């Protein structure tokens, strides 16, 4: 029986398309959700800030798209962050580690690590757009890499002037951060400022949120796990 050419051509088109669809299913599958809005409580301890900072770097900050921690093999695209606090203290003359980190985040092209291309985006501007408090948390985490974190939410630096210290002491076991989905209702602990000099949250805010480092009520599910294990 002779198969009509139209049928053969149709079969070829469907077969080729199906093959490419199949190839598309074979690569790792990852659904990337939009970053969640974070509301940072005014009573965070430095240790809590470091935890929050790590989470921000992993999600909204997109830091690990470029940076690594402890990579020992292969070429580096951007500086590895292992032991970065130690280097930060002496990297630029006259800048403390906190000031150096602040400069790399607010004004990244002011100093570029030798051997690397400039490429770091301004972190407090869109599309990343971290708030001043979020950046303090990131600095707290960076200080843990090779040093001891000292930064608090009341720390000021060249790019940000913190308001007066809040009256209330941090509540033990209080939730350091509460992330909400865009449009969701954040816990009433004050709105983080978006520009230098804006007060950082309401002093004496209630600390009755459920415990846990990063509760995400009503937030969309995190990125689906990559299909990498058979």
């Amino acid at each position, binding site marked *: 029986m002779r198969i009509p050419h139209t049928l053969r051509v149709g079969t*070829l088109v469907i077969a080729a398309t199906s093959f490419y669809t199949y190839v598309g299913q074979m*690569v790792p599958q990852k659904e990337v959700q*939009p970053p969640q809005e974070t509301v940072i409580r005014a009573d965070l301890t430095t240790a809590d800030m470091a935890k929050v900072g790590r989470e921000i770097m992993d999600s909204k900050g997109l830091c690990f*798209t*470029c940076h690594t921690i402890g990579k020992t093999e292969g070429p580096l695209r951007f500086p590895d962050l292992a032991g970065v606090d130690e280097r930060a203290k002496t990297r630029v003359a006259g800048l403390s580690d906190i000031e150096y980190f602040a400069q790399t985040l607010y004004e990244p092209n002011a100093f570029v690590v030798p*051997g690397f291309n400039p*490429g770091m985006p301004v972190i407090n501007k869109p*599309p990343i757009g971290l708030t001043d408090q979020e950046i303090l948390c990131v600095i707290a985490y960076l200080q843990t890499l090779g040093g001891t974190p000292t930064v608090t939410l009341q720390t000021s630096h060249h790019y940000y002037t913190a308001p007066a210290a809040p009256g209330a002491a941090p509540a033990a076991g209080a939730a350091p951060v509460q992330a909400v989905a*865009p449009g969701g209702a954040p816990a009433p602990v004050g709105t983080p400022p978006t520009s230098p000099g804006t007060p950082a949250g309401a002093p004496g805010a209630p600390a009755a949120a459920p415990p846990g480092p990063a509760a995400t009520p009503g937030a969309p599910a995190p990125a689906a796990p990559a299909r990498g294990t058979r």
Partner: protein
Amino acid sequence: MNGAMNRKLLFILGPVTAIVMFGAVMWTVSALLNQEYKEPYRVPAAVVDTTPRAQGLATEAADAEAKAKAKPYEEVEYRRFPVVGSRVAIWAVAQLHLLFAAFVLAVPIFAFIIEVIGYKTGDQRYDHLAYEFTKLLSVSFSLTATFGAFLTFMLIALYPKFTNYLASVFSPTFLPYVLLFFAEAAFLYTYYYGWGKFHPRVHLALGLGLNLVGTAIMLIANAWVTFMMSPRGVSDQGAVLSVWDAIYNYTWMPINVHRVIANVAFGGSVAAAYAAFKFLQAETDEERAHYDWMGYIGNFVAISAFLPLPFAGYWLAKEIYAFSQTLGLTMMGGAFSWLFIIQAVLIGNLFLAANYYLWLGMGRVEGMQPLQKFIKYLLAGVALCFAIWATPRSIIATVSEIRAMGGSAHPILGYLGVMSAKNTAVNCLILTTFMSFLLYRRTGKVAIVPWAKMGHTLQLAIFAGAAFVVIFLGIYGYFVEATVRIGLSVPQVSSVLFAMVSITAIDVFLYRGASKTGEVRWGRMPVISQYVLIFIAVTFTWLMGLMGYVRSGLRQHWHVYGVIRDTSPDAFTPTLGFATQVVSATVLMFFALIGFVFWISSLHDRPDFKERSNARARERSSEVSPELAVDMPAARTQTS
């Protein structure tokens, strides 16, 4: 005899039946009208709707009406498209619009060039070929416009707020766009219907006008699209500062160049697929020869445009990085990095298929044997480069396998997954395909210029030099810092471009007035070669769909990157698997529609209905008996 009786009976019974039915209707109507009229029972007006429930309902209805009237206008941000959602609906419609637009913009470019060749050489075959390509345009243009309107309405309906924002930025470009569209229609239809009706130069001027206007339309539309990816000319909050800056954003010009080249490659491949389909349906050697030639030209156009396409891609990627490192890294090292492995499979297939077609094509030229021995080396080169390009840096493996490897990268193959290896592989692929082109071009010819030997040596030296530079820099890239390594792709690309241009230039003079060892026998191609052309067209289309996705998807949860955020339920970036399904569905829809275009275009050459009926009748009668067939007209006359 019986037939004649039946017709007479029907002739008599028809009017009788009509009279009987008319009488029956008249009787029924008069019987109904003559009946005595009786007043129906009605409830007294005082008891109607006076219950508390009825009053309550009336008050409720009045309140609802008052509320509805007092409700202020609220701008809707998003609306939901049923079943597939708004994003997929827009995605499919936009992709279909772009595919048809690419075809409509590309075909006039090479139709015009072919017509110029025909005019210059006086060879009418080129003129006919250009006309045959242009025949595909008319219906495609209507479909492009229809999908454009469809896309606009969908954007207004599903993304009203964002569409409103884009309109606020680009409203000064709308009127020129519409006017250009009118001009495009005028040029296109005059060019098509005026074929052979004007002086050739006037007709060529129409073709040139069509291309210029088409390109201008594309430039405007590209400004809207690229602004979304790399906005400029607006404040951080999105207020318009300069419309020209918004148009001339970072990625506008690279996309313009990339799209013109890609459109030509895509249009050439689809036109070649049309020729292949017609070749398969051809019944005579003459038809086969014509469509074989048309398919060859279409494929030649496609591959010629395809070879420099990666260079335009480099430029686009460079501008994306220049605009935002974050955007660039999302593309190459983030969520979309695996997409480029799929792209490698597609481009590898394209190179393999294009080379295979060229090698098959050598068979149609007498005296191809001396060059045939090179094919196996070329195949090995193409296969090796394809394998290297499609090797990922990290491999999908189980935990135990990752432990055994000492990481997600394979200890040996992992080295092939980095950019140094991939840049080298793709440049070598281009060089190999270029070599196949050269061999095909030389098949059946012998250079007779006095400097032939020196010319061949020079060409070989340039080719070997380019290959050496590409491979050396590829290996060197493993031993230097990132800052140096990134810059190595420029000399790699430059050496390949230099080789292609200089070798072609030498070849033109080398084979001028060459003696022929055999003729090209058009139409003498194995049938599989035509399926290869169709495969190339499908792969090109799929590739365009995939790269369209990455260009648009790069913005992730932004409508306008860094300025207008997407807060719809579709703001997430889907998996690559899902994206490939949407691309496939769109490609299948496109081929169903382009099949329709081909069919309509083929109607042009179809004989008239009456002519076909007569031909069929003649065929039938000749099948019954040649004698009866001869007597049939006489028999018909007697019966009537």
